[in-house]
């Protein structure tokens, strides 16, 4: 049977070779974040009929179908009408596939927002047009910049409630632009929208003739992310040693891992840390057999020419371009535990595939994420605080600044008594 035209179109949409854009959204409790996501999912046909029916039933009595109910997944969230934890959503257009981390906006759940933003290529901060930039909007923009999310979108929502006033939009845009100038925001886009009615979400709206920028979805589809990755500094943290010990692969010894940055090719001269020994890459095995080159985020297995002692936690790089080998770690830390981080405290550190212990040598300052004021007198970091910390580790780590390398510049802190993840760290040598 010949496929119907719609099936053909659907197959084309499904089979196209596309890339993935990872998005994190953040907004205050009533900014309409969940409504916006519901709108994107609904208008891009990612919402299925039975989900929509369940939401229609649940929002009976209101004037509109409550699209927010599509995303708030936990019972407590639906009852309280808030987002507590990150929810991941998936939708696709013919150009791109999107993974959206829908994160809570409330200060109490900052750690969940950091979780959602950690993997994002692009962050959407929602602002209520009637309220303008609030403390929360500043915090969200700051967190996105702290985590080096390369692209920031400010969606000025509820424009219908300010009669699509160009002045209101411009005031918010200008205020945000000057705030962003103080942060590391390489790419800022400000879009006026109404999530409830769908204006400027998927298509440009006639309600804003004065706005000549893209719709939100158009921007998400076209934002250029290829240059966000580091293809220069070769970093390959060894994750696992593969030794089949079978007759067919008697002498096989491969170093499995995920390429952090740079490009690896058979024949490349490489250095292994911490030993410092050099050798060459004999072969690289990918999921479908040998490959000519490997780059981030490929998971491959590297075979070396010489029989060296290499194990998990070691790092393969180029001899002329090695990361810093250090036990003294300066980093911005986002603290996620109820108990305070304090100087003298001992913690476990997981950095790439390397796990070490560390002591907090110094808290240099606690940052007020709303004013960016540095409090050098702060005795510790409480839940959801961010500060600059110096650690001394038991073993050296192989590090780069987070600004240069998002993989070798990051780590998590683990409480050794509870085994909880209690902090996220981003290395920086500057101040």
């Amino acid at each position, binding site marked *: 049977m010949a496929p119907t035209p719609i099936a053909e179109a659907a197959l084309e949409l499904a089979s196209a070779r596309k890339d993935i854009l990872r998005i994190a959204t953040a907004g205050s409790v009533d900014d309409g974040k969940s409504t916006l996501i519901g709108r994107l999912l609904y208008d891009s046909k990612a919402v299925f009929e039975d989900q929509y029916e369940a939401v229609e039933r649940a929002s009976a009595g209101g004037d509109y179908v409550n699209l927010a109910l599509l995303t708030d997944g936990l019972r407590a969230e639906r009852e309280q009408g808030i987002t507590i934890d990150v929810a991941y959503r998936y939708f696709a257009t013919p150009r791109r596939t999107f993974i959206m981390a829908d994160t809570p906006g409330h200060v109490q759940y900052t750690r969940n927002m950091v*979780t959602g933003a950690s993997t994002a290529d692009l962050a959407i901060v929602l602002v209520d047009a009637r309220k303008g930039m609030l403390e929360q909007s500043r915090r969200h923009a700051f967190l996105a910049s702290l985590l080096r999310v390369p692209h920031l979108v400010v969606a000025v929502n509820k424009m219908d409630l300010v009669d699509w006033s160009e002045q209101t939009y411009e005031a918010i845009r200008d205020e945000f632009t000057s705030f962003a100038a103080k942060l590391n925001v390489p790419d800022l886009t400000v879009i006026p929208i109404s999530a409830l009615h769908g204006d400027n979400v998927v298509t440009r709206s006639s309600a804003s003739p004065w706005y000549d920028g893209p719709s939100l979805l158009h921007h998400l589809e076209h934002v250029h992310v290829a240059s966000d990755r580091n293809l220069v500094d070769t970093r390959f943290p060894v994750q696992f040693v593969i030794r089949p010990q079978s007759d067919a692969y008697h002498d096989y010894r491969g170093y499995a891992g995920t390429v952090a940055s740079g490009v690896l090719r058979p024949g490349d001269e490489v250095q292994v840390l911490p030993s410092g020994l050099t050798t060459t890459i004999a072969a690289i095995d990918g999921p479908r057999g040998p490959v000519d080159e490997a780059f981030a985020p490929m998971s491959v297995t590297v075979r070396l020419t010489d029989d060296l002692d290499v194990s998990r936690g070691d790092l393969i790089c180029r001899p002329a371009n090695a990361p810093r080998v250090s036990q003294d770690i300066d980093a911005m830390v986002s603290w996620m535990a109820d108990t305070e981080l304090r100087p003298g405290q001992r913690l476990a550190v997981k950095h790439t595939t390397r796990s070490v212990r560390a002591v907090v040598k110094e808290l240099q300052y606690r940052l007020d994420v709303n004013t960016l004021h540095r409090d050098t007198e702060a005795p510790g970091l409480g839940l959801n605080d961010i500060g600059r910390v110096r650690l001394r580790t038991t073993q050296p780590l192989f590090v780069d600044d987070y600004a240069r390398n998002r993989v070798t510049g990051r780590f998590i802190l683990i409480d050794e008594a509870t085994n909880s993840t209690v902090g996220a760290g981003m290395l920086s040598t500057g101040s």
Partner: protein
Amino acid sequence: MTTPDYRLSQLETLEAESIHMMREVVAELERPVLLFSGGKDSIVMLELARKAFAPARIPFPVMHVDTGLNFPDVLEFRDRRVTELGVHLIVASVPDAIARGTVREEPNGSRNRIQTPVLLDAVEKHGFTALFGGARRDEDKARAKERVFSFRDEFGQWDPKNQRPELWDLYNGRIHLGESIRVFPLSNWTELDIWQYIAVENIAIPSLYLAAEREVVERQGMLYAVNEFISPREGEEVRRETVRYRTVGDANLTAAVLSTATTVEEVIAEIAVTRMTERGATRGDDKVSDAAMEDRKKEGYF
């Protein structure tokens, strides 16, 4: 495989991410096990495990929580696949647990809920500390909230309001004795991704996933194939329809959908235009309430 601009396709990206997760588990946790039912998601997960450790064998066993209500076709597939890969299969049997009296049959005939204690008993008996599950975040609202490394206390319970923060791909696999981690390597895959991967990689699947003429009865708007677990009830008319299965759960509760898709490519074309989520369309057991999955997960369900 490689592209001039050094970018991976969505499937290559998802594959790399899943392989990373699986290697991380084997490096950090002592006794992992992979839950394998013979369903399409666990088939893809097992294929990813093969790739993650090739040319070595998969370094952990697989386990099937057998409700005793499986489609024979799927069981046969399960056994064939584990033999091909040379992995050890552990079967945790719900009928055995019923016979021993450790769980009791539910009045509605669903063994969905009572699989959980059987799973937890098997985990304890074998001392497993990490369990790979094929759940995807796009399946359900509660699953959309799940971490990749999802911590479980010594009772196997999930605490959705107090999950460990999960930053980047730095997974925290640390646990105390008796606790465990559920790991979901397919977290970021959608139903369509799974099917595309099956097509692109030419992965074998049980024949139930493809359309064939089958004898069916209609119950509450859903079509159930007549088999050893489903007999027509009084007043139900048996008719022949061309149907396939979108999911393969228990044979007494999994409905089929009308379909003409006899190849994986045709299934993809149908799924791409379909407007009903796979669980809503085919699982009698998930229709109970908005929070049905959340409640079961808290108890230790996958």
